[in-house]
């Protein structure tokens, strides 16, 4: 049994999780990473994706986050998400709307830089949709 550490998932509206957990999988901007106790201090932005929290008691919870960043120190991990919901509470219509908006953004983009950014965001969202569909 791995050592537990403190994990907090915060969105601007409320504190979603504040618990002792065993490990957390974070969709970092440069790849997924699993955080366990005594992780080296890292600060990373996160892309839209699924955060998997394995609590100290062994149960697993999954949350969908839309962008934000994570602050990891050896003593714990704080995830500041722009918006976050538990996978089971996710409103599929809302996700579809976000994807639709992202698609429009990508189409409306004026220069290449903006477009590639919007397209990247769109592909992240569609990947996310694919990842949680079976759930």
């Amino acid at each position, binding site marked *: 049994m791995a050592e537990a550490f403190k994990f*907090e998932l*915060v*969105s*601007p*509206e*409320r*504190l979603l999780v504040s618990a002792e957990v065993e490990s957390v999988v974070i969709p*970092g*901007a*440069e790849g997924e990473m699993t955080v366990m106790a005594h992780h*080296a*201090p*890292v*600060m*990373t*932005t996160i892309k839209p994706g699924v955060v998997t929290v394995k609590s100290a008691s062994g149960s697993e919870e999954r949350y969908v986050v839309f962008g*934000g*960043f994570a*602050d990891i*120190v*050896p*003593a*714990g991990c*704080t995830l*500041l998400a*722009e*918006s976050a919901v538990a996978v089971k509470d996710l409103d599929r219509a809302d996700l579809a709307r976000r994807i639709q908006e992202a698609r429009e953004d990508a189409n409306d983009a004026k220069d290449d830089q903006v477009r590639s950014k919007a397209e990247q965001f769109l592909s992240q969202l569609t990947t996310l949709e694919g990842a949680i569909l079976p759930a």
Partner: protein
Amino acid sequence: MPSLKDLRNRIASVKATQKITKAMQMVAAAKLRRAQEAAEAARPYSERMGSVLANITQAVGGGGDAPALMTGTGKDDVHLLVVCTAERGLCGGFNSQIARHARDHIRRLLADGKQVKIICVGKKGFDILRRDYASMIIDRVDLREVKTLGFVNADAIARKVIHLFNEGAFDVCTLFYSQFKSVISQIPTAQQIIPAGLASTPAAATDGGNAVYEYEPEPGEILSDLIPRNIAVQVFRALLENAAGEMGAKMSAMDNATRNAGEMINKLSITYNRQRQAQITKELIEIISGAEAL
């Protein structure tokens, strides 16, 4: 002298008003609790944001690669004021307090020869500022349809501001709102959000302390992602504080109104009773003197 019937009508109407103000007070109290909870729930996020921001600016060291949103344009000519007020009145001096604070600020800026632009959030502030500074109001945000303030509302405002900044429409942005101190005391506050005065983020003594962070991607990149988000958070906080303040002000205003109505009813009842008594006495005298005459 009003007749007995007039007095009766008057008392009935004041009683009806009292019932309304009483109901409004109770609604405000319930909403206040919810608004306070929302403000409290948002606090961890903005606190974390502050400490992370302080951490990372330390890492970047305020060097040349710090984004413009933080360092500003280097000029101080055009000021943008985002004035947040309530959508509804009947809350005492709440809205006019914020508006007055903003107006003082505008006057000072104009005296210094600066250019001023205004974005109004909330109908009441717009109504007040429109009288004097209609030409400076470049935009207004209507939150009347919004039932519960979400981060999206704040994000939309922040995006608007950042968009204007990127277009070079202003140099300094200041946010006006009312800080919720207690139910009876709200303090109108001006907060500069662009360039992000780092004095506004409390010196962070995080548990991370002096830890050497690894950054993914580069600190500069994170920072340019973080600062717009921080602006949205500041706006969100202002809106929440405002919502709580509005309800607090409304509650005490309605409490006052209810009490005044009670006093008025008392006074009117005394007049009414006196007059009734006088009339009875008069009738008695008439009867008695009539009987004596026989």
